[in-house]
């Protein structure tokens, strides 16, 4: 028999989970209805029953190092069927939030970004100050290095030059992504350590095979598809996911178009700003539409969800959705302004009366992008990475092997 693990309940952690939306977890009486109704749960190590017990006992280390909480896509079938109203789905969501905060590096960021009281400061004041500061140092910097911006006559570049945009966001994002990497490595080691401590670690495949398997799942949303009761959620997530991916690709392309392709691919570049029929523009607009539609639908679903007992949303969820939505909508507003202004005023649009309102929206857009990208490792956006890492871990340790096909026929008590 393995050495007995000494269990010391952590009441503080228990209270944190309760505060993060797992308020009903103490009601659980371990009947396992949740694990039975779950279409994603692995037969060998089913969730969310064990997580409910761990949460009840405040077993912080186990929960934070548990890959299984990330295998849940929160259809909340378990919460609806729970005979006690313990809402396991919401508890897992709260645990995921605690994981992101726990592994955040620097850890103060994790607390700060998600503190509802700090929201105005985090989401408005700081980006405004930083962006305004960047604009403020633009002139002196350009003068100091003697740089004349070749794109200075373009509508938005006139206001916020490309080089500044790229330097500003790349540096901050790379900085926080370094923090993200630290967090993910710790998370990985945590999962490994807990599995070893419990004597349950098995490695089935190489990291790369596992990663390939996980990525396939991410891009097809095939696991999410097993939450059949909530097919609409998967659709919304797919729309927003591919919308974001498209916009991210376009952003990378645009940067390369400006500063890399001219040196690599020759005179045809830069092509920026793209015309309406440019493939990248089409991709961008398509991505934008997907993002806005996806997030809008997700927000509507969350708005209505409490009525049918599905989700309970916390500020953690709402802030993320609003940021995505705001980025998409302000992006379109800004785009429309540019086309209108350029159509009417041509090359001197930047000096036209349409410029000030357009720049105001552009500024808002940049603030929203800041909230989304720079805070990614600390906000709900981090689920992208933590879930991916957990899925890779799950593939590597064979956790998905026992997922059984879901019985859709519901019979009586016979």
């Amino acid at each position, binding site marked *: 028999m393995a050495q007995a693990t000494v269990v010391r309940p952590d009441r503080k952690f228990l209270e944190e989970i309760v505060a993060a939306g797992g308020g009903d977890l*103490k009601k659980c009486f371990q009947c396992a209805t949740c694990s039975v109704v779950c279409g994603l749960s692995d037969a060998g190590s089913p969730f969310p029953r064990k997580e409910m017990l761990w949460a009840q006992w405040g077993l912080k280390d186990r929960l934070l190092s548990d890959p299984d909480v990330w295998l849940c896509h929160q259809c909340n079938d378990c919460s609806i069927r729970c005979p006690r109203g313990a809402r396991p789905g919401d508890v897992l969501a709260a645990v995921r939030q605690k994981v992101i905060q726990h592994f955040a590096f620097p850890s103060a960021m994790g607390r700060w970004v998600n503190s509802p009281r700090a929201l105005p400061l985090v989401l408005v004041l700081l980006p405004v100050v930083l962006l305004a500061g960047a604009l403020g140092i633009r002139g002196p910097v350009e003068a100091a290095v003697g740089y004349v911006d070749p794109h200075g006559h373009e509508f938005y570049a006139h206001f916020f030059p490309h080089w500044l945009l790229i330097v500003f966001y790349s540096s901050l994002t790379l900085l926080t992504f370094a923090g993200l990497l630290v967090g993910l490595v710790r998370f990985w080691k945590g999962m490994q350590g807990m599995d070893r401590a*419990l004597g349950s670690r098995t490695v089935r495949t190489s990291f790369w095979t596992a990663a390939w398997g996980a990525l396939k799942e991410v891009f097809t949303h095939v696991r999410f598809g097993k939450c059949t009761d909530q097919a609409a959620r998967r659709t919304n997530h797919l729309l927003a996911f591919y919308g974001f991916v498209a916009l991210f690709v376009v952003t990378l392309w645009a940067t390369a178009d400006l500063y890399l392709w001219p040196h690599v691919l020759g005179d045809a570049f830069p092509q920026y700003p793209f015309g309406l029929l440019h493939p990248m523009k089409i991709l961008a607009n398509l991505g934008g539409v997907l993002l806005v539609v996806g997030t809008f639908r997700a927000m509507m679903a969350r708005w209505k969800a409490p009525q049918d007992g599905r989700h309970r949303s916390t500020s953690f969820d709402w802030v993320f959705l609003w940021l995505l939505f705001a980025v998409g909508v302000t992006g379109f507003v800004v785009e429309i302004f540019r086309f209108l202004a350029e159509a009417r005023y041509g090359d001197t649009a930047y000096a036209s009366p349409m410029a000030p309102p357009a720049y105001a929206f552009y500024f808002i857009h940049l603030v929203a992008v800041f909230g989304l990208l720079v805070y990614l490792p600390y906000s709900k956006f981090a689920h992208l990475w933590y879930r991916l890492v957990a899925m890779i871990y799950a593939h590597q340790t064979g956790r998905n092997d026992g997922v059984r096909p879901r019985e859709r026929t519901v019979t009586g008590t016979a």
Partner: protein
Amino acid sequence: MEKNVAVYLCRGCDIGGALDMDALKAVATDEYKISLCRDHECLCGEAGRELIRHDIQDGVNSIVVAACSHRYMTDAFTFDGVLTTRVNLREGVVWSHEPNHEDTDMLARDYLRMGIVRAQKAALPEPLQVEVERTVLVVGGGITGLTAALEAAKAGYPVVLVEREAELGGWMRKWSKGIPHGPTYRDPQDTDIGFLVAQAKNHPKITIHTGAVIEKTRGQPGQFDVTLRKNGSVVEFRVGSIVQATGWKPYDASKLEHLGYNQSPDVITNVQMEEMLAQGKLARPSDGKPPKRIAFIQCAGSRDPAHLPYCSGVCCRVTLKQALMARSLDPEVEAYVLYKDIRSPGQYEDFYKRAQEDPGIFFTKAEVTGVRNGGATLKVEADDTLLGGPIALEADLVVLATGMVPRSADGELIRKYLDAKRVVEKGEAGAQLEAAKQTVEELRCLEGGEILQLAYRQGPDLPVLKYDFPDSHFICFPYESRRTGIYPAGCVRNPMDSQCCREDGAGAALKAIQVLEVTARGETMHPRWGDMSFPDFFLQRCTQCKRCTEECPFGTLNEDEKGTPQPNLARCRRCGICLGACPERIISFKDYSPEIVGSMIKAVEIPDEFEGKPRLLGLLCENDAYPALDTAGLKRLQHSPWIRFIPVRCLGSVNIVWISDALSRGFDGILLVGCKSGEDYQCHFIKGSELMQTRSKNVQEKLKQLALEEERVRLELLPIDQPEKLVEIINAFAEEVEGIGMNPFKGF
């Protein structure tokens, strides 16, 4: 009084159309020379009954009603001062056999013969005369006893309440709060025991004896003479019935050393925890420091074949209460509850939820593997938790949720001890003495454990069944015990919570009152309600074989020095087991005796062996098997026309002589059907069908003597709800006997 028998044939309910009524009538008028034989199209109707009433006025005093089963229309055919004999032509004949068939007619005629014979031989029972003292004795002053005393007193019956301890109130007096007993069922609640005690003390009809134990209880229902010893003095009085509410004691925790008891002073039982909570201060026994982590181990010894195999049903809720109370005394306390299952039935689910909501109370399913003394803290080790792998919890105090053991005394075992002791004292020689000495050694611990001190041959206390609970088949016969007029209630009967104790106390009080009134009318209690017949012992011919005194399930019979039975008829439940036991056939009831049933058997016409018509006798217990036969008739299930049934009071009331008589008369087979025996018995008289199983070994001897096949006698046990099975048994038996061939004694 001169017998004046009249026979009434009913033609209703298909009877008239299916039988040769003239031939039937001829049985009465020609064979038995009964001048008064009438038939009617609806005998149970007003016109039919008027017909009977008219004849009664003219002097008829024994009527044979050949109509439906005796289990239907009983009231319609009951007339004052008249012996009624029912012949079952409806369920037993026309509904279960081919109409207008020769064999069906023969069957009906045989039943009528049997009925007429009974009407001639049996007499109308006269009620037993017992002078009843209408006072109830309640033994035990806990919540059950107090409730029983108050309920009986409120109903107008004087009560004597006897309590061993110096004060009333039992366990509950010692506790500060109980589990909730009213809405919202969420928080520990005051027990109200003080209110009950005050009510009992102030009730003019209740006499209270505290610090008193029973020295002797002599007599029978309506006439129990009780001697108490109270503070060195003796108190004597007479009561009519007894409620035994002696409660429970905690399971002996010293047997739970594997859970740390006796290994560390900080491992305590839930009873000790209760005492600590009552003092309002949490302190570890070892160093007096306030414990901050309290582990509750549920089912400590319970549901464990090595200790208490049963669930006491309250420990879970007691732990919930104790955890909540400890938390309210000190909010820093963490309570860990390790359970097999939390059992919180009904409204108590809300109490469980309340405890779950408390952030300082932690629950997990677990098999506790050990409690180790780790210096300042205890380590509780457990497996099979859902936390994954074996776990250990650190605790400052461990509370063992031990179960309830009935505070009962095994009357039969004590009697065995006393008998052995007598043998040893007499000093008789031989192997018997050695065995007796050994028994005395083994059972010496029982000495002084008597509670009721009954002056009964079969032992001084209620017989017990499983796990030392008094033998009382609560599902079928609520509150009844194997001693008429004595009703166990509360935790001595079954582990239960205080609310159930109150209900149980009230229920037992009603039974205690009922037995007084029923006995005063000269009737008996369950299951032969209203029966006024009682056994008569023709003692001149008694051989002192003691079978009746041993076999009576209710301890009716005491013995004198020589072993002659001394009946206490108010204890009797009229099952007739003594009648079945008696080899001298000296025990009889006015309407049920070896002679009456024997004559009925002899009244059956046995065709000679060349006619190819076998004859079988069926003796059916009238509690389950006979009703099942009626139901089979109601369902029109057809059974063999070879068999003739006689209802018997209990399979135990079957005297072997009936079987040997039937075989020597030429019956080809005998079927005996009774109720389930053994540990989960359904026998309404507890021992009856079991006794028959023993006696049927003697029957096999008899068969051997007669050189008959042993398959000719079959014993079956059957519950009331299986008429199909009964018909299957009958038909299969008939077929088997046909296969064996005819009884060679036919015609002798």
